[in-house]
Each structure stands twice: as C-alpha cells, then as structure tokens.
C-alpha cells in the first residue's frame, strides 16, 4: 500500500532537488579587520586593486592563521611622496592567530608586524620559507616598497627587507616564492602593474568619472630575485630575461608546464598579451606565450588578465592556466596540450556561459566537493565602482563564481554567498582541518569573508604537506600525483594572495591512495596504500 505523501516529505524532497550550497558564510570570530582602500573622487587606480590575504600556519601549531594586507589612507590631494598613514593602527596589516576553538586572536603587534611603513600602500602577500628554517616567511607587496618579514620561529617576525635587498619599488601587486634554479632556496618573483604615481594620475570616462584603463599609463617590468642562500637576494631580472618584457602584470603562478624539471612562470597582464616565461634551466627564461598559444584569446585579442591559477583542471597530469578578466571577455582557459603548447578552451570548458558578464580577481582550482576534479572558484567584482551607471547590465558588486568540474567541464553551483561583494583576493585552504577546502575572500572597504565548506558529501580526501630536504623545505615546484590527479606545489596564484601550502586531493569513494611525488631535486617518491582522510607529511629522501 502506498504511504501518504506528507508535507514533510514534500519539503525534504524539495530540499534534495535544490542542490545545497557548497559553503556556509561563517563569521570570523576575533577578526575585526576592514580593508581600508580609501576610495576617493580622484579615482587613484591603487584604490581598487588592494586586498591581499594569506592562509599560513605561522607558528606551526597545525592551524591555519590569517594574514591580511591593508591599503592605506588616501586623500583627494594626494601628492608624491605619498604617506598613506600606515603607522595608524587603522591602516595596519594584520596577523590573526587561529585558536583551538576556531576563533582568532589579533597578534599583529606581538608578532612585530604592526608598522607597514608610511609611503607603502599595501597590495598583496606571498608566503614561503625562504631560509628553510621550517617557519613560513612573509613578503608583503605595496605601491611603494615591499617588505620581507622573516619568521623568527617564536611568534615574531623581523623586517629583513634591507638586508635581503627585495624592496622593489614602484607598484608591486602579486608575488610568489619559487625555486627557479632548483638549488633548494626559494627565489622570489614580483609582478608590477604599471608606471604610476599620484602626481600623474588620470581620470577617465568623461562625465562618468572613472578609473582609467591600464593602457592610460606606461607599462613596467617584473622582478625576479634569486635567493643566494645566505639571507640575501640578487635581482636577476635583466640577466634572466624577465626585464626584457614590459607589461601590466597583476597575477603570477608557477608550474613546470613542459615537464623539463624546471618551474615556469605565467604572468597575467591587464589589457594586453599574457606572458609565459619558460625556464631554460640555465638561469634564463624565455617569454613564449604567443608561440605557445597562451598569450591571447582564440580570436587573437588581448586579455584584461587579473587573477591566475596554474593547475591541472582536466586530470591529464599537465598544468593548465585559468586567467580571470573583465566582462565581455571570458575567463581564459589555456589547456596544456602536452607538446609545449596550449589551446584556448574557455568555450569548451563551459566558461563562455559562466563568465562573460563578470569581472574576476582571486581564483582557485580546488576540489571543493572532494569528487576527484578540481572546481573553480572566483572572487568577482567590477573594477569601476560606478560601472552600473555606465552599463546597466553590469554590477560593481558581484557574487563569487563557484563552478563544479564535471570531467573537465565547469557548471555553476551555489556558493552559499547571497550578498554581492566588492571582492578582490581569494585565498584557499582547509581552515578548520576537516578535509574540505575553504575560501577566504577580501572585500574593498569591508571585512574578509570566510566561506566554510559544508562537507556535504561522503567523499574522501587526502592533504599532503611536503617536507623538502634536498629541495626547498616547502617543496614548492614539486609535482604530486594522487590517484590520477596532479597538483603542483605552490602557495602562489589567485590574485595578491597566498594559499594554504598543503596539497589537497579529493578522492571520491576511493579507499586507498597512491601518492607519487616528483621533487624539484629530481627525486621521485611513490607511496602505496596510503590511508585516506588524513593529513600526511611526505618527507623528501635525503639521498638520491
């Protein structure tokens, strides 16, 4: 006999039919940070570009902490030299230590990170253990001078910029630690956006009074610092060939795209061709994006490249590239074809429908549902705060994009965010150590937003921490394969952010894992029958 279909049955059926959001927006207990971008009527371009964030375990207690980069105070009458009032606590960068109860404590002053330095309008952050002492160091980028903070291992940091020689200058945006020469010491790549200062600011858009497009200002060069291994760095931009290519760089990501054992560099440029620097392995790099098919759209047009991720989205073992952009363009998917070249696959991957009306910044390819395929998350918002007046079909504040990966094709999913945001940075990591990837978003003029993964399915996972011995201690540059999926170890990518350095793998219904690590030193390591649902440290063999 058929049971009567009750109202309760109907409601539970309806709930099943509508897919549940992947994330839950969680209040960040103990974090009172507001990103002070200080938007003015003068439309200084720096105002709309800030919002760096890092997820790192600075005190090695096993919990991810949060570092947030602040902008600074801008007045309508800004003149060179700018001040930005960074000694005022309102404009400090902030470090929040995660407590055992999931809350956070502001440890900025105690950690020695309180004073970002007047004259430095904060942008982004990179994380890496540049001196291999087992504690992650911080590199903070700015319009002005960048700062390298050495982690002393006792909860404090020391500004070692002058000694290290990595202040850069100009307008730095994203940066990342990478071992370019496989010598076991992390080098540092710094993107710079343009040659700009307040005295040469322009306002565009006529009566609309908007921020200018990037080509209104001169292009500039990026910087590659080689780590000498003694706490100092050497600017090798000229010698390495990086300085030969001027651009308008906003994002940077690293991976060995051609499997030659040396990490390559992809730089997203705004309003022009993208740059792929192939690492020749002899201390030089050659820019080859155009000839590799990764410089332009399939129509031969430049891109408003902003955020970037360099990971394998289709599980073919090779790192692909996703670049986020402005509306009327599609987020670019450059598929790595395995022959040293790329194919533009935005349409085939489903991003044509998902992204042509949006502006993307921070971006990540992470397996949010632990199904075994990396999904796409993008922090979205237009550059212009008055874009809706100019084009009623566009919005300044947007919902983030979450697109689940179904065999290499992305389909929109509910992120759980219901209020549009002026989002910029997005950092990815497992904040509550539950085996499910979370997201931290930064917002202009607002607080950071934590999207905690609801861990809604019964899928399994594995989280790997690399411990380099002959290679750099973080294992950055290693290629890690788990049950047919591949990740390239790095904390760089996204936009002005540093991600959890642990490598997360969703395993679906698998009950065991096979882990294969190809270290930057060339060492290969295979671990069979690895237990699932665990945080695993893989130590590099000390001898060949």
């Amino acid at each position, binding site marked *: 006999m058929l049971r009567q279909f009750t109202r309760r049955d109907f409601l539970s059926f309806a709930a099943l039919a509508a897919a549940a959001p992947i994330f839950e927006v969680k209040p960040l207990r103990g974090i009172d940070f507001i990103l002070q971008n200080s938007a003015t009527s003068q439309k200084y371009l720096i105002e709309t570009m800030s919002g760096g964030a890092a997820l790192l375990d600075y005190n090695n207690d096993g919990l991810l902490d949060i570092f947030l980069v602040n902008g600074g105070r801008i007045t309508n009458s800004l003149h060179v030299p700018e001040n930005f009032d960074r000694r005022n606590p309102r404009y400090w960068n902030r470090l929040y230590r995660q407590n055992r109860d999931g809350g956070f404590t502001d440890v900025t002053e105690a950690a020695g990170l309180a004073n970002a330095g007047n004259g430095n309008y904060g942008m982004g952050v990179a994380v890496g253990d540049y001196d291999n002492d087992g504690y992650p160091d911080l590199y903070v980028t700015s319009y002005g001078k960048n700062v390298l903070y050495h982690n002393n291992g006792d909860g404090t940091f020391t500004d070692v910029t002058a000694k290290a020689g990595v202040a850069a200058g100009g307008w730095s945006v994203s940066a990342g630690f990478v071992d370019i020469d496989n010598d076991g010491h992390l080098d540092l790549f710094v993107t710079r956006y343009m040659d700009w200062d307040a005295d040469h600011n322009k306002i*565009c*858009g006529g009566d*609309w009074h*908007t*921020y*200018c*497009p*990037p080509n209104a200002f001169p292009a500039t060069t990026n910087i590659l610092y080689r780590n000498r291994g003694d706490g100092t760095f050497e600017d090798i931009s000229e010698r390495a060939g990086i300085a030969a290519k001027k651009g308008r760089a906003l994002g940077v990501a690293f991976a060995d795209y051609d499997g030659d054992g040396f990490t390559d560099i992809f730089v997203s440029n*705004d*309003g022009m061709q993208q740059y792929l620097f192939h690492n020749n392995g002899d201390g030089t790099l050659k820019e080859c994006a*155009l*000839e590799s*098919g990764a410089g*332009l759209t*399939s*129509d*031969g*047009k*430049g891109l*408003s490249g902003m955020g970037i991720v360099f990971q394998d989205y289709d599980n073919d073992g090779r790192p692909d590239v996703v670049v986020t952009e*402005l*509306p*009327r*363009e599609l987020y670019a998917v450059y598929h790595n*074809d395995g022959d040293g*070249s790329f*194919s*533009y696959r935005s*349409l*085939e*991957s*489903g991003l*044509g*429908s998902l*992204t*042509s*009306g*949006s*502006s993307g910044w921070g971006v990540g390819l992470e397996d949010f549902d632990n199904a075994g395929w990396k999904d796409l998350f993008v922090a979205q918002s*237009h*550059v*212009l705060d008055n874009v809706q007046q*100019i*084009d*009623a*079909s566009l919005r300044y504040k947007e919902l983030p994009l979450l697109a689940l990966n179904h065999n290499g*094709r992305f389909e929109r999913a509910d992120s759980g965010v219901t209020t549009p945001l002026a989002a910029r940075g997005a950092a990815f990591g497992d904040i509550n150590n539950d085996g499910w990837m979370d997201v931290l978003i930064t917002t202009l003029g607002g607080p950071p937003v934590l999207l905690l993964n609801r861990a809604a399915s019964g899928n399994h996972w594995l989280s790997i921490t690399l411990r380099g011995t002959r290679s750099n201690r973080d294992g950055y540059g290693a290629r890690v394969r788990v049950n047919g999926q591949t990740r390239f170890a790095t904390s760089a990518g996204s936009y002005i952010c540093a991600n959890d350095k642990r490598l997360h793998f969703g395993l679906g219904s698998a009950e065991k894992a096979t882990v294969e690590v190809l270290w930057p030193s060339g060492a290969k390591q295979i671990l069979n029958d690895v237990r699932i649902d665990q945080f695993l440290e893989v130590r590099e063999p000390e001898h060949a």
Partner: protein
Amino acid sequence: MIHFFLFAWLTGQSAAPDALQHLQAGLEARKQHQVDAEITEFRKATELDPSLADAFVNLGAAYMEKHDYGAAIAPLKRALELSPDLPAAHQFLGYALLSQGYAAEAIPHLERVGARDALGIAQLQTGQLLEAVGNFNEALAKRPNDPDLLYYLGRAGGLLSKSAIDTLIAAYPDSARAHEALGENYFVLRQMPQAEKEFQEALRLRPELPGLHLELGQVYANSAQWPKAEDEFRAEAKLQPGNAEAAYRLGSALLQEGKMHEARQQLERADALKPNMPETLYSLGKAASLDGDAVLAEKSWNKLLEIERDTSLSAQAHFGLATLYRKQGNTVKARQEMQEYQKLQTKVPQPQNPPN
C-alpha cells in the same frame, strides 16, 4: 560660380547709361576679384537706376561672394520684384535665406531652380523629412561620395525614423510595435532589463511577429545570459527558417555555450542562406575548428580573407589559421599567418576594451 550667371544679361538692357556704366565697372571689378569695388559699383548702379534688376542681382551676388549673406537678401528680393523669373536671383536668395535660418522662406526659391542639396537642408530644418530624404537621394545620385550630403541624408533618415516611432508610441502605446520600438530604444541605451521587459510584452501581444525573438535574444546575449539567448534565437529561427541572421545568432550563442557541433550546423546554415558574410565565415571557422573539423575551419577563414583583407576580422582569421597550422605541426604556414596577423595589428584600429 557667380560669374556664370551674370554676364549674359547685360545685352539688351534699356537702362540709364550711367547706371549701365557702373554695372559694367562692377563686372570688371569682379574679373579682378575686387569684391569691395564690385559692391560699390553695383550699389551705385542700383541708386542711379532703381529699376535695373541686373544691378540688384549682381549686388546680391557680390555680397554672397563676400559671405555677407544677410546683406545679400534685400537686393536679391528687389531683383525678383523687378524681374520675378531671374533664376540666379532665386538661387542666390534661396541660399542666402537658408544661411540666415529662414529655411521656410528659402524653399520656394530653391524649388524653382531645383537645388536639391540646399532644398533638402531647408526641408530638414522645416520638418519636411520625407521630402528632404528624397532630395538628398537625388543629390547623392549626382555626387555619391559627398560627405555633407551623406551626413544630411543620415540625419534626415534618423529624424524621419524617430518621428514615425514617436507617432507610433503616442498613437498606439499598447501595440506590440510600440513596445518593440521602446525595447529597441532601451537596447541602444544599454538598459537591458527595460529592453527585455518591452520585447517580452511585444511578444506577448504578437508572438508571431518576425524579429522580436531575435531582438530579445540580443538583449540576453548582451547580458551574457546565453541559454536564454539561445532559446530566443532558436524561436526566431523556427519562425523564420530563411533568416540568415537568426541562424547566425543562434550559432554564435551555441558557440558561446560550448555546443560546438550544433553551433557549426547553424553557422553552416547561415552561410548557405546568405553566403560570403565575413562574420558568419569567421564564426563558422571557429566552430569548425573547435568541433575538430580543421578542413572546414581553414576553408571558412580563407574564404573570409578573400572578402576582407585589412579588417580586425581578417586579423582574427589569420590568428585562427596560425593556431590551426601550429597544432597541425605546419610551422612554416603557422609563422606566415602569425606574421600576417601581427602586420594587421599595427594597421587595423583595435576595438577599445571597456574602461576597467
């Protein structure tokens, strides 16, 4: 030009001899390009013989020559009072009145001499738009590349269109056509939600009206709502199976959605319905390339390049071919196409990105 009209009339004049002397002196001064002397002499002639029509015409003409159109009006009017059939006087007076803003008064004079260009302008200014369009078209038949005429024709056509639409909206505000027209206005203003609403209302009233689904689809395409755009373009293609644009738009939407195979089919259909359209050929090449048909892609892009050589679309076709050949391992041809693409990058103005 003034000279052509005036010499002949001196023969057979019966006027005061001293007036004729000044008239003759004025004509001599004209030969020497001494406009002020002309005016002095012609004025004296009119004073000595106030019934000498030729003197008035020449005085008006001299003022015209000096670009003093206001001063030309009175003597030209007097000349026509004395001799109503003087064609030169009608022509000069028509131009002079028009230049001073008296368009309505100028019209009969311009009509009389068949000055189509100036007549069209006068009619444009007096709101006789249909007549103005006719006259501009006639004038353009004789001077097809005249930028002023092209401008005025465009302006008259635009105003005529606006006038008709204003009448439509005022007289039949609840009609499907009124909603369609409003939708088109909103679309041009990029106010997509309002445009969507108007097109939807027009469709509700007259679902069979050709073009409405196409327009609504373009609203969705403009807002990157590709599945909705696809639905509308598909509806239009069903309504008008012979409409090449509907097939092209549907193919483009499908391409955007990553449905390569069907996109290619629709674009092939668009190409068959209206061959040699560069946009269709470019998109067809792209769809074929993504659908794995390199032969069709190459053929479509090369066909495009036979039609267009120096446009942004041809640059894109070269880039597409370069990519195609690179993937085929044909590095020589890939390099050639890339060089052509790069050459065009420096030649063809690039579309500007929206401000960011």
